[in-house]
């Protein structure tokens, strides 16, 4: 077992974990953060995407022990985050979700695309989203929702990073 200290959604957490425990299982089973979903557990579908030190990461491929002294953001976080708030609204208005299983990770990936200014065109959004599989929507409405949120965020804070 290994002691780790992780900042999860802004709160410090200390836990003694087996070295082989994945970050996804750590979040879901030990922290009850079940908004992080497992679709393939081999890094293809992207449903388990979270932020580790601000960067999107596949929590199914990452070990909890690798997150010692780092910060993790899951869909249960982002309180007051204007980009996620905008995305939630446009996803709702544009019917960008059906079963909802890919949705938390889609929002996290989309937020990252917008903040890195990689959501300027449909092509750019589609390429940036290609690591997140959705089996329900066919993606069209997701892409539209992200483009709208990106435009809105760009207007509000043209120099946001």
């Amino acid at each position, binding site marked *: 077992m290994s002691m780790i200290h992780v900042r999860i959604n802004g709160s410090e957490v200390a836990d003694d974990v087996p070295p082989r425990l994945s970050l996804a299982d750590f979040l879901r089973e030990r922290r009850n953060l079940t908004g992080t979903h497992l*679709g393939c557990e081999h890094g293809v579908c992207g449903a388990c995407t979270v932020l580790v030190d601000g960067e999107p990461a596949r929590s199914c491929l990452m070990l909890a022990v690798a997150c010692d002294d780092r910060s993790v953001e899951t869909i249960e976080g982002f309180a007051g985050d204007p980009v996620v708030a905008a995305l939630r609204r446009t996803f709702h208005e544009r019917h960008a979700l059906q079963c909802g*299983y890919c949705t938390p990770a889609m929002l996290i990936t989309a937020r990252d695309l917008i903040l890195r200014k990689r959501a300027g065109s449909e092509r750019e959004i589609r390429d940036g989203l290609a690591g997140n599989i959705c089996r329900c929507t066919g993606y069209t409405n997701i892409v539209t929702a992200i483009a709208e949120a990106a435009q809105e965020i760009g207007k509000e804070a043209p120099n946001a990073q």
Partner: protein
Amino acid sequence: MIANRYIGSPVERFEDRRFLRGKGTYVGDLSRPGLLYAAILRSPRAHGRIRSIDATAALALRGAHTIITAAQIGSQVPRIPIRLQPLPVLVPYHQPVIAERKVRYVGEPIAVVLADSAAIAEDALDLIRVDIEQLPPVPDRHAAAKAEALLFEETGTNLAIRYIAAKGDPGRVWARADYVRRERFAVQRHTAVMLEPRGVLAEWDAAHGRLTVSGASKVAFFNRRILAEQMGLAEDAIDMVENDVGGGFGVRGEFYPEDFLIPFAARFTGRPVKWIEDRREHLIAANHAREAECELKIACRYDGTIVALQGDVYVDVGAYNRTNGMVGARNIAQFLSGPYRIPDIRIEASLLLTNKTPVGTYRGPGRFEADFFRERLFDIVARDLGIDPVEFRRRNLLTAAEMPYSIATITPYEHKDAFDSGDYRLTLDRCLQEIDWAEKSKLQGKLVDGRYQGLGIGCFIEGSAAGPRENARIELESDGTVSIFVGSSAVGQGLETAFAQIAADALEIPIDRIRGVFHGSTAFVREGFGSFHSRAVVMGGSAILLAAESFKQAVRTAAARQLGCEPGAVRLVEGRLAATPDGKSVSFAELAGGGISAEESFANSRHAYSYGAHAAHVAVDPRTGGVEVVDYVAVEDVGRIINPMLLKGQMVGAVVQGLGGALLEHLVYDDEGQLMTGSLADYLLPTASDFPSIRAVVTETHPSPINPLGAKGAGEGGVVPVGGVIANAVASALAPLNVQPHELPLSPSRIWHLIETAHEMQQQLRE
């Protein structure tokens, strides 16, 4: 008549709020005190005889609790029955819930390990020693037909059943037909691959003899009946609980071995047991679909009028027939004629057993395959006859004057069916207009920037509204709001929203007076039939209409008692008040104390058929065989549109699934019956960058006459014609190279080989 406020409007979904905050609750999110985790040992061999299972080392592992094999289950290992249209001849091929003496596919359950964590359970699996005597595998339908090796020695054949779809008598036309053409086509094995894997959590309450099973979906009431019988319990001693569901598409929610094994394990150990499938497991354990070949012959007049269609279909159904494994094959046979007028038909569909994962229904079962066969055949025929492929279709499409139109009857169970309403040429014309066929078809076969351009078209029907009944209950809550309970199941399609729209209109109340729509779980209504055959909205929605009438009557009666008037004099105001003409009133909240509730059942023995047309513009790179879908238009008439936003969402999603089936997805087996595509790195699902240009157009020109909503199914049609449309577009693009695709998927390597082969043939002809 319903005062219409919400039906037909793009009402935004109620479901979104929880999903957008990570607050959806899927079965994998559930936990219980004292929980045991299950992992399932699955056969590594396609065909073999189990000699021994030694779990000594596994049980010695710290945290491993129990191992369950056929021996623990008892002398009679339960079988999984057929859900719809069962036949005695199929009984020998029903799957035992755990392998007894033989294993028949890679992935068949052999043992269940229960442990303190999923990780320990999986460690323990590795320590179980299973000795399997290998038997010669039956890897495909040709080996199945040869019958040198048999999956079920006792029946002496690998042919499970042969269905015949017949109408008229094609036998008499061949000799004197103007034109006859024979072709062979094939569709590859692929399946739904919904993003949330399957899961079951079972809790046994020994004190009261009650079982609760979470993770139910699609047909909870039917599965409860099977489980009750298998476990020797009364049906009402079992609660099946539907949680949020991460996609169904026909595959999730059928009764699988785990649907017995996990509840059994809970009763066996007296502790709650949870099993969540991993992705590799899903790809070998959940239903496969679509693998079919056909040999067809068609007779036409010189003017393109179809005279007869006859042929054989061979469907590889895998190792067992479980719950609905025959539906794909019988649908291919019955719906090969599609939306067209074909007077004489005879199609024989043979279901062949192989040592592969059993098949079941996947969105548009049999119809996707049949549409590929037929629409491809029609383009080849039209070309032969020198008739424009659009004109060929228009000449043969059914019109409103021909409704209801009887289609081929399926034997052995003598199932007769008829299309209910519609004018199938309308959706074809709309589709041509939307894609600008007149202009774009000038590009056919042209080379633009190194890629050949092609347009393809195809027409389809979508069946829906399977009976026998559906139930809905409406209840007045203490605060005066209403709750809707319905037997239909949600699988992510936005059912709560669509049903709230229907209920709000029928009750003549603002939609925010509906507290919730509760669906799927067995505790909500007396009986329910679930969500398959695009029946949820048609059947559940119609049941809600009936329940709403009874509910309003109950409210009027209760109010009349309090207000001292006749029920007929009571007017319901905005879902809040019941009032008399002279101004006296009582609020819904005050009436709620009396316990007002109405449950009704909508019964239906006929089917409602949606229909439409799709068209695609593709660009094919002859150097790589890569296909780009430049533009894609899907048009469907669904009788009555409940929510255009949800409807288009279903259509676009279904089209992209169809494009996956047409171009990418393939469950590949080797000759030993091993799945070669057991991960999402090998089994290619469409991604956001693959198919950017999909457009959905919906119409409602011909409401269904067989239900009070006028609705027809809408969830499956989008997938049905895609294989045929894309293959026709590719054929048009590559016409200058003489390429005619006969098989899916049209992967780059297949197209490249087709081009090479055509090229070599041309060369040989020249020499």
